[in-house]
């Protein structure tokens, strides 16, 4: 459009005249910040289940000698430090494990002990020796699994009836003990979830202690997020994974 075009020209001319030579009214093009996102990285390639194959021992890696060529290119042999990976690595198939040493023997001199008072609701656990000679029955209390809210270890009122039923059974079977397994959904970090699963198991344990079961009869264990009941990634699955399961322990006959 002619009038507008002329106006533009006039403006440019005026600006140049008014501001003098060398003054730019157009901004310098801005170079994008340096620092790259890198080349696109291919996504994970998980082509089906990975079969665990036999582990082949690593052949010893010959050490790397670093040589600076001189005029005559003399090869210098030295004893360089190990560059790593020089020894065969064998998996532990369990047969070479040292027999289960119950809690390592404390030194004969009594260590300095800080006596901390036990806050309510944190009853110390029985010795793990008491688990010996007990046989687990995982199906017995399968219907009594207790469920939890997200990031919570509180035994809700609606769940307490299930724990009560377990408590009644334990009262009727004084020779039996109980393992409480705590579980989480996948939405926390792994070790946080491991601790949260333990808190859930402990909360159920505390509930049963109040119910009247003796503290030397209940053990806890956490599986974190590693043993989901439903291996899917939605709220329906997650709500089924936030749980505490009961395992009846019968004395070995």
């Amino acid at each position: 459009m002619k009038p507008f075009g002329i106006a533009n020209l006039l403006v440019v001319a005026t600006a140049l005249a008014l501001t003098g030579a060398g003054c730019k009214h157009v901004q310098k093009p801005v170079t994008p910040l340096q620092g790259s996102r890198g080349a696109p990285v291919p996504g994970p390639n998980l082509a089906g289940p990975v079969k665990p194959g036999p582990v082949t021992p690593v052949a010893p890696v010959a050490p790397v000698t670093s040589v600076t060529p001189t005029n005559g290119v003399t090869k210098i042999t030295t004893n360089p430090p190990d560059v790593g990976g020089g020894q065969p690595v064998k998996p532990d198939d369990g047969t070479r494990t040292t027999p289960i040493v119950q809690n390592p023997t404390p030194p004969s001199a009594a260590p300095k002990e800080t006596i901390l008072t036990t806050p309510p609701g944190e009853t110390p656990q029985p010795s793990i020796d008491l688990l010996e000679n007990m046989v687990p029955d995982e199906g017995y209390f399968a219907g009594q699994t207790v469920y939890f809210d997200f990031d919570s270890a509180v035994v809700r009122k609606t769940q307490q009836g299930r724990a009560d039923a377990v408590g009644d059974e334990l009262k009727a079977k004084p020779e039996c003990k109980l393992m409480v397994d705590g579980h989480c959904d996948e939405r926390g970090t792994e070790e946080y979830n491991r601790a949260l699963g333990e808190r859930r198991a402990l909360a159920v344990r505390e509930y049963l202690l109040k119910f009247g079961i003796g503290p030397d009869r209940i053990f806890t264990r956490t599986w974190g997020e590693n043993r989901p009941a439903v291996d899917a990634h939605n709220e329906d699955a997650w709500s089924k994974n936030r749980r505490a399961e009961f395992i009846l322990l019968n004395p070995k006959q």
Partner: protein
Amino acid sequence: MKPRNRRFWLGWMGLGLAAWAASGTAAQVEERITIPRETIGSTPPIPIAMTGYSGEAGSVLRFDLEIAGFKIVPEAEAQYLLQGGSSGQVEGRLQDLVSKENKFAKAYSGGTARTQAHALADDVVLAVTDKAGIARTKIAFKVTRGANSEVYIADYDAHGPQAITADKTVVAAPAWLPGHRTLYYTTYKFGNADIVSQDVDTGNRQIVARYSGSNISPALSRDGRHIAMIMSKGGSPDLWVANADGTSLRQLTRSPEDESSPTWSPDGSTICFATKIDGRRTLATIPASGGRVQRLKTSGVPSPTEPDWSPDGKSIAFTSQMGGFEICVVPAQGGEARLLVSGEDPSWAPNSRTLIITRRGSGGQRFLSLLDVPTKQTKDIGQSIGHCSQPSWAR
């Protein structure tokens, strides 16, 4: 022109200028800059050109340099030039193109092409940055298949992975004993969550903590003499310390909240861990000899967890949970947290510069990634191994 006419014309110019500005032409001159989040606050990578390399050694060299904070560019844009070859033995001559200085010229023999390329990459890093490289370091991590998992070790780029357990159950949180080829981890092999230590080369292992309840999240002090771990035998998951063989147990915290993920300061005086104070998730510190728990400030990000103290003592990397998981770094005394990339469970390399993290993909996939903290460049690794998580860098 008479003065009166000049003023008259300037007046019209002014109006024209106003009209022109309003027309939006001015706006077309501005460039809109979208700054990618990854580059905010990051250092530009060092431009280097590589000539003469090919095959496996070439790609290993390229990987090592990129994760060390370099960018491979054509010679015309480069600050450094690495010339050499990789057929037969790996060789390299490094020149500073700006100062015209020849930094070094080396040939490598022995080992494999990969090891030679790693050695050359480390020499480049040392020559340019005056700091030791990490191309020949090792990592440990967990590989999950179905309901079970095993502990693996590999090169830092996940090459050559090897299982060191065959427990056919759940394992968790491998942690190196500093300066040794010994790994601590939790295994459920004996019917409980127990902490064991294993000599990686012989396969021999020993029980370190097998108490009622759960024994989890081992962390070893830098001098290799002490272990921090989370145990619930006292009735709640608390922080305990002991000698590295599990003797001389001492309880450091007693709270109804759960503590998790302890990490030692490199001087062995302090332990940092994740906990809840006044109902809010936070990082905290406690003297390793026992004492008061103090909150560690991580301003600007919510729900910090999984701290790892850098070997030089200056920084703590951690996971922030904000919808997804984000890797953050904070000064070791606390303060403003710096957001880096998406991911969780960071572990520092011996250079206090590189992190290895876990990332989640869709459908529950987990894989490892290396992160160069200053440039924020990342490399995903080990995708063909399976679901990988909980990495620990040998330091």
